[in-house]
Each structure stands twice: as C-alpha cells, then as structure tokens.
C-alpha cells in the first residue's frame, strides 16, 4: 500500500431514508470531490430503483466511531438493567395489552 492516493476523490458514507417514517440507514460509500457531488452521485448510485426519499452524505473521515475494545465499557453496563425492558414486569392477563 505504497501508492500515493492523495489525488483520489474523498470517500463519503451514504445514508438513505427509504420512506418517510423510517430512519436513515447506512447503505455504503462512494467517492466525490465535494458534498454536492456526493449527494448527486448517491442519488445515481444508491437509488436506481427508487429506494429513497432522503439522502445523507458524510465524509468518511468525519465519522467518529466507537472501537470494538470499548464494547465492554460502552454496552455491557446496560445488559443488567433488565428493568428497562417491558418484559421485566409481570402483569395479570386481565389487565389487557399494555
């Protein structure tokens, strides 16, 4: 991996809302010279079958991600908070759906 890639167009991550009411979902990435090009390229690349009503593009280098080593400290503490889940509570059937 020695080749000089400074002249490569930057990488953008693409997120698409497939229909109103749903979250934007990561669908992949693409290269573009700026955010405007990233947006139109995303339209051409990722919505060829009308998969979207809204597109977000973010420069890949601007994404801050948690690392797998953080998994323990980030997510495990909530594993024992079962009271945050509805099934934790025992209600009689007579109460009906709640």
């Amino acid at each position, binding site marked *: 991996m020695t080749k000089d890639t400074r002249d490569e167009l930057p990488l953008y991550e693409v997120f698409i809302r497939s229909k109103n009411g749903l979250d934007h979902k990561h669908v992949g990435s693409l*290269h*573009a010279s700026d955010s*405007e*090009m990233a947006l*139109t390229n995303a339209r*051409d690349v990722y919505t060829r079958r009308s998969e979207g009503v809204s597109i977000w593009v973010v420069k890949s280098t601007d994404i801050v991600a948690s690392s797998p080593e953080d998994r323990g400290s980030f997510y495990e503490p909530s594993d024992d908070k079962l009271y945050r889940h509805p099934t934790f509570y025992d209600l009689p059937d007579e109460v009906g759906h709640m």
Partner: protein
Amino acid sequence: MTDKDMLFDYLLRLGDNSLILGQRLAEWTGHTPMLEEDLALTNVGLDLIGQARMLLTYAGEVEGKGRDEDRLAFHRDTAEWRNLLLLEQPNGDFAKTMARQFFFDHFQYLQFEALSTSSDERLAGIAAKSLKEIAYHRRHSTDWILRLGDGTAESHEKMQTAIDELWGFVPEMFEMDATDEALLDAGIGIDVARLRPAWDAAVNAILAEATLARPEDSWSVRGSREGKHSEHLGYLLAEMQFLQRAYPDAKW
C-alpha cells in the same frame, strides 16, 4: 403537409433528439472518468431513451401506417431523421460531451416546460413526465461545466475548446419553420425562438461563473429539420440499425 403529417414530423423531431443523444451517451458506458459518473451518465441515457420510446410510439400512431418505435428507430435513413445536428456530433472528450449535454439540457428543459401545457394532451403528458428527469440532467451537466471550467488550467482549456467547437450548433435549436408555426397556431407546438432569452440568461450566468468565455456568434450550421445532417449521423445509424437491417424478418 396535412395537420397529421406535421404533427408526425414534430414528434419525430422531439423523439429523434432524445434517441440520438441517448445513443451517443450509451457509447460512454464503461469508459467514463470514474465509476460514479458511469452510473450518472447512464441514468441520463436511460431517461432519454425512455423519452424517445414514448415520442416515437406516439409519432407512429399519429402517422397511422403501422410503424412502431422500432420501425421508426431502425428503418429510417439519414434524410428521414429530424434530430438536431448538435446531438449527433461525436462524444469527443468528456468536456465536449458535457458541453453538448449542457446546451441541450437547458434547451430541452425550456422546450418541455412549454410543451407540458400543449393542447395535445398526450404530448403534454410526455413533456410533464420528462421534465423532472431533464431538471436533473441540467443540474448534472451544469455542475460539470462549473467544475471543468473553474477546475484546473487543463480542464478550463478543454472546456473552453468544447464550448467553442459546439457553439455554432446552438442557433438551430431555436429555429422556427412552417411546421413549428402551424403547430404553434394550433396550440400544440411552442415558439422555440422565444425560449432563447431564457436560455441565454441561464447559460451566460453559468459560463461566467465557470470562468468560461461565451463565444462570438461567428458561425452556425442548420438543416436537420429538412433531413440534412452531418456525416456523423450515417455512422451512428449504421451501428445502431445493423441487426434490424441485416435480419429484417427477425424479431428480437
């Protein structure tokens, strides 16, 4: 010419524009400067071929001689084609392809916008449907004019050369002939000559922003409405029509 003949001719002009430009763009497939652009340019090409199919199908029905879209696309020789000379010009480099596209996208948008209120409902419907696509084409080619014009010294030079080389094909887009006048009177067609100021305003502004010079109006060519084409169309048709011509009895 009867009214029917004139409408047929008018629809051919519109449909042929879309088909010939779509065919030219198909030549880029797999060869564009970047993969993302391959997808973008193919989208434009697909839209144009879709327009051509609707318009030629309608033209065939108006003519009433049983010619469908394919009969019209694959069994007419150069003199019977009505596409603008600009659109049959070879792709050249990416700058030239974008200059051709930029000139036409801005024209076609204005043209179809006006046609979307045609008294011919079918034509108005096709124009309205296509207008959204063309708005996107226009954005795409305009973006590239800006990038190439105001990019590097090399791209600026290439873009300026392309604009200069194609400038003389611009006036033909805004020409009015007897057919245009008659259909305008009938409320079916539109006055393309009146679109010129809006086209000029948009194009001038973009060229200026792209640091490109608007060429002098020193030359212009015309003739497509009478079937007088450049030499390039013959080769384009020879390639496009090969199978249908070589095996006229076959269905594909």
